[in-house]
Structures are given as structure tokens and as C-alpha cells.
């Protein structure tokens, strides 16, 4: 089968925050879609298919949301698919959409991620529901929270691979500091290590400031067959490689409960797909559900041989060899679950085109950027490598 090349012709995110303006997820989805479509230089009638990432009907109380959004976005008639993979839902949608183009089944597709994770239910209700993101029969019924499972996984990681309280603080401060330059970020904050230590304990070692927030918001990308990309979009980034994998659903059944094995496999598959190596990744949007999760991700993705050392040497700072979470990541920018993976991919595409928020846009652009998303405690991992166009700004 001939595999078609895929270009990100349009990319946009709404602000991620807790909405208090009376708007709902359909409004945010439309807003992100229209911005992405305008940037793509395409018309609604050019769109062959719609892929919608939304984690849970519990949030918006809308079953079959892809069919509803097809109407709401003015796309009635297109093929529509809802994609779900927990926290990875957005990246799963990106992969599914890109594969459709690669296979020749579509020329231009819209990928929309949207969830009202902050405003529609109480934080306690969402926490209860998230407990059923893992094995509902064991962890879910037991009342194990997401934060508790991530905390246990990080402790296992730290015992085997290293990672200190100071490292958790460094990640927290860096991501939220980056978010201060992102006008769409939920938590642009400049805390001190003492502020972190003084924030309430959620599940040791995690305190409130080590956690990503629940957010409302949407993100959209338009993917096009590269040979059908409008001339005005010749500098747009392309999808170079995709990889996905799963790990055992029980943390305790994994040989190393602290290591994100699914992420390592997904990255190896994406690198093989792209013909790239982890060392060539110069920008990365990582799935930092918690501060320690970012350290675990860096290790599994092969972005460092010694995570603590490189973190403290500034390798992942905005001016470092691989700037991580310039957007602020989930911790700083926020996490409207279905929108997260789509937003990460959109952010990478905008960065590689030189069109991101000016204060965060690097002076020199790397060849590759990485969008990394997972669901469960990295039970389902999906990563995408994007490549800068030769004629990018």
C-alpha cells in the first residue's frame, strides 16, 4: 500500500481554564475548529472526515459526541468517529485521523479534542470517576485515586532510577513559569519551592502544586495529504512518525512498576516510523499529569540517560537542548482531557512553523518535535513526532 504523507495544515487551541462565561464544550470545539480551518486555507467543504477526542460522557453528558459536533461545526455529511484512550484520547484521535489520510481514505480531516473537565462536575465527582480509569474491578472498587497510583509509581521509579523532591520542584516551577508566557494557560504561576512544600498533601510525595489541574477547553488540527496542501501552507509541519503501545493494566503486574514501558515501546515505534532518534528531538510536549510523571516520561522516551542530572543542567529549560513543555504542559497550561493530545500536537506544529506565542517561540527551530500522551498510569501510550518543513519560518 502506498503511504501518503501527512501535513498539519491548521492548528489551534482555545484557552484552557475553568470557564465562568456560560459557554460549553460545543462552543469551544467550534472556536478551535474555526481558528484551525482558517489557518489551513481550506473550506468546510474540503473536510472529508471528523475525528473527535473526548474522554468521557460523564463530563458533558453527551453520548455519541462526534455526531453532534459534526452538526455543530457545520460538517454534516462527513464521516465522523469518536476516539477514546483515557488521557491519551487526543493523540489516539490524531493517529486515527493521520492513518486515514496515509491509507488514502481521506484528503483533509479535522481532529477536535474537547472536554469540560473543570466546570461540569465537582472535583470530587471527577476524582471518583477517574478512579475507574484503571482496572475498575480492582483499583476502582478499592477507591485508589489517580494521584495515589501515580504517587506509588513515582516512588517505584525514584527508588530504581532516581528522582528527588527537589527534582519535583524544578519540574513544577519550570512548567508553570513557561505557562506565564502562554496567554491561554490555566495556571501561570511563579511559586517558590516553599510554596510547593506548603501546599496541601494529596498523595505523598505529591502536593497540590505537583498536580495538573482539571480544565475546560478544546483544541483542533486540520490534517491534509501533503500533496493536496494549499500552496500558502507549504511551510507547515508534517507528521513524521507515530507510535502507540499498552502496558499491563495492573501496576503490580509490571516488572518495574516505576518505568513507563508502554511509552518506551510507543517511542521506539514512532522513531522507527520517522527514521529519527530520541536525540534528534529538540522540542517536546510531555504528559505531565504530575511533576514526577514528567521525569518518568523523559526516561521512558529516551530523552536522557540521567534525568536528574540533565534536568538540573537545564537541558529541558526553554533554552535547553530539548525544551520540554514550553506551553506549560498539563501542569501549567491545563488539562481538558480530550483536548490534551490534540493541543500538544497543535502546539508542536505551531512551534515548528514559528507561529507559537512569541515569548515562547525558540530562536532556532529543531528538525523534530514530540507530542507525548498517555492514559491510565501510562497503560496506553501514544506519541507523535512532527517534522519542520524545509521552508518553515
Amino acid at each position, binding site marked *: 500500500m502506498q503511504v501518503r504523507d501527512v501535513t498539519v495544515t491548521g492548528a489551534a487551541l482555545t484557552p484552557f481554564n475553568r470557564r465562568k462565561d*456560560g459557554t460549553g464544550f460545543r462552543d469551544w470545539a467550534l472556536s478551535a475548529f474555526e481558528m484551525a480551518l482558517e489557518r489551513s486555507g481550506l473550506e468546510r467543504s474540503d473536510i472529508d472526515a471528523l475525528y473527535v477526542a473526548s474522554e468521557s460522557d460523564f463530563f458533558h*453528558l453527551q453520548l455519541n459526541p462526534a455526531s453532534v459536533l459534526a452538526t455543530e461545526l457545520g460538517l454534516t455529511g462527513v464521516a465522523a468517529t469518536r476516539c477514546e484512550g483515557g488521557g491519551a484520547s487526543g493523540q489516539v484521535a490524531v493517529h486515527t485521523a493521520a492513518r486515514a489520510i496515509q491509507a488514502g481514505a481521506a484528503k483533509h480531516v479535522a481532529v477536535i479534542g474537547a472536554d469540560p473537565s473543570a466546570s461540569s462536575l465537582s472535583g470530587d465527582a471527577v*476524582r471518583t470517576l477517574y478512579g475507574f480509569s484503571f*482496572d475498575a*474491578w*480492582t*483499583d476502582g*472498587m*478499592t*477507591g*485508589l*485515586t489517580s*494521584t*495515589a*497510583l501515580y*504517587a*506509588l509509581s513515582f*516512588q*517505584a521509579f525514584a*527508588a530504581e532510577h532516581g528522582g528527588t523532591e527537589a527534582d519535583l520542584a524544578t519540574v513544577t516551577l519550570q512548567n508553570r513559569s513557561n505557562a506565564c508566557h502562554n496567554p491561554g494557560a490555566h495556571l501561570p504561576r511563579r511559586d517558590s519551592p516553599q510554596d510547593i512544600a506548603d501546599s*496541601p*498533601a*494529596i*498523595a*505523598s*510525595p*505529591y502536593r497540590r502544586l505537583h498536580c495538573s489541574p482539571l480544565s475546560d477547553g478544546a483544541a483542533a488540527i486540520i490534517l491534509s495529504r501533503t500533496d493536496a496542501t494549499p500552496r500558502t501552507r507549504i511551510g507547515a509541519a508534517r507528521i513524521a512518525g507515530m507510535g502507540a503501545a499498552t502496558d*499491563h493494566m*495492573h*501496576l*503490580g*503486574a509490571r516488572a518495574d*512498576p516505576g518505568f513507563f514501558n508502554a511509552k518506551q515501546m510507543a517511542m521506539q515505534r514512532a522513531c522507527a516510523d520517522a527514521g529519527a532518534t530520541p536525540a534528534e528531538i529538540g522540542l517536546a510536549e510531555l504528559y505531565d499529569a504530575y511533576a514526577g510523571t514528567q521525569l518518568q516520561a523523559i526516561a521512558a522516551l529516551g530523552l536522557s540517560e540521567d534525568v536528574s542530572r540533565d534536568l538540573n543542567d537545564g537541558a529541558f529549560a526553554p533554552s535547553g537542548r530539548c525544551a520540554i513543555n514550553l506551553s506549560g504542559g498539563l501542569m501549567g497550561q491545563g488539562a481538558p482531557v480530550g483536548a490534551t493530545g490534540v493541543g500538544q500536537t497543535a502546539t508542536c506544529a505551531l512551534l515548528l512553523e514559528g507561529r507559537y506565542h512569541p515569548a515562547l517561540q525558540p530562536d532556532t527551530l529543531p528538525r523534530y518535535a514530540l507530542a507525548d500522551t498517555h492514559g491510565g498510569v501510562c497503560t496506553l501510550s501514544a506519541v507523535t513526532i512532527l517534522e519542520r518543513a524545509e521552508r518553515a519560518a
Partner: protein
Amino acid sequence: MISHHLGLDYALNPGWMAPYVAGLSVGKARARRCQSCAATSFPPLRVCTCGCLKGDWTDLPGTAQILFRTTGLDGDFGLVHFDGATTKTTLRLQAIPATETRGIIAASGDDLPVLCLTALGGERDG
């Protein structure tokens, strides 16, 4: 804003895991021993990590070593190693002092099948 309360009463069938759920209710750690490699999983795995689909139910002694524990808003949880098991287990820790490194499974009774470790000598009746 539209305020709406939705209450849901589920009737869930545990299927092949029924012996595990029944074991929890009376405080038994009912594990699955692989017929091929003898690995013993708890919570039970339908398919062993070796790939074998055939296993037998076996009751572990119910005591476990606490490897990692986390404390916070929703109580204490741990990653533990049950005596006789090959896999490790994530569960709730109930009334186990921070200095204690071992515990014993607690009966969940007729409530949800909660996986819970309690202090040795302090197990709930059941």
C-alpha cells in the same frame, strides 16, 4: 447554567473474577496460579504474563509486605507484595502505622470488593 442530578444504580457482574470477589468479601486473597509457569497473580490475571490462558484458583495466606506507601487526602494506599504471589498489588492500607511494613488482608463484607490491608492481629471480623 443547567443544574441536573443523575443517579445511577449499576448491577455489575464480575464474570470470571467472581471467585476473587467472593474471596475478598470474607477476607481471602484468592489468587490465580498459572498452569504453565506456576506464576501466581493477585489480583488474578486471566492471562498469565507468560501468555498462558489456563490457571487455577488458590488462596494465599493473606499476609503482605508493604513496598511503597502513599498518604494523603483519600487515606493511605500501598504497593505491596502478598506472600506466595508473583505479582505485586496496589491496595488501600487501613490503620497500619507508618512504621509497620507488613499487614493482612481485610474482609470487604457485602460492600464493594475493596482490596484492603490492615494491621496484623487487627483484622476485621468476617
